[in-house]
């Protein structure tokens, strides 16, 4: 229990600082690399929550595929690779900072009010629950129709991306 708390705080501080880096960095490539830290941190959080399969899917899909897509997008839009103040942000920084701080305050107050008595009890059955066997069996028994719908959505997104990006 003690080791889990220490691990959580290390991961959470790294994720929080990197999330601020994603939205405040003055260099587009640095923002993408900060995003990698946030995504890897949430994979570590999933491991901490004993959700092993979701953690590895997170590493494969997010860090392996989505970040590479982002880096391609940065290269193809010829974003300035050097530090470029002022160009990456618009002039709503102050207002949106106030709004998101207010949102965070409200969310924190309500979360503490609602869930402060709930604790996660880690048991041995939770390890089996996070395995690929349990998650896969749940997908293919109970959630098979949403699974098929999501695969159709991926096909539609594939065709749509090709149609949008084609040059003719």
């Amino acid at each position: 229990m003690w080791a889990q708390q220490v691990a959580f705080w290390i991961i959470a501080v790294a994720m929080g600082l990197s999330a601020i880096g994603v939205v405040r960095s003055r260099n587009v490539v640095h923002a993408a690399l900060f995003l990698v830290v946030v995504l890897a941190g949430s994979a570590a959080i999933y491991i901490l929550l004993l959700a092993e399969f979701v953690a590895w899917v997170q590493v494969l899909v997010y860090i392996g595929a989505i970040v590479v897509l982002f880096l391609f997008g940065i290269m193809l839009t010829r974003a300035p690779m050097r530090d470029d103040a002022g160009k990456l942000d618009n002039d709503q920084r102050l207002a949106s900072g106030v709004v998101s701080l207010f949102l965070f305050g409200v969310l924190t107050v309500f979360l503490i009010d609602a869930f402060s008595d709930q604790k996660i009890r880690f048991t041995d059955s939770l390890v089996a629950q996070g395995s690929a066997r349990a998650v896969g069996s749940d997908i293919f028994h109970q959630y098979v129709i949403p699974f098929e719908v999501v695969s159709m959505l991926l096909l539609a997104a594939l065709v749509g991306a090709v149609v949008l990006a084609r040059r003719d």
Partner: protein
Amino acid sequence: MPINYFLILSAFLFCAGAYGVVARRNSVLVLMSVELMLNAVNINLVAFSTGLHDVAGQVFALFVITIAAAEVGIGLAIVLLIFRNLRSPDLDRVEQLKG
């Protein structure tokens, strides 16, 4: 371990993403902030899945990851289209609704 730790971390990531969506001008960075918000939702889902001993939350986290991948594909195609038409990835130059 209190479930609130995970929920407040996720709320923080969500608010950082919301800040980025509003305050960023470069469209690729706006997409990155949207990913941050989706990731916050995933942490919530997995935390409740473990807290309530129900695997459904992890299944939905997998669906969210899939839809995020589709969203980034389409989003970057749109960003490329904006860049090709306006010679700039800045979102505040996209102001015409009628071609």
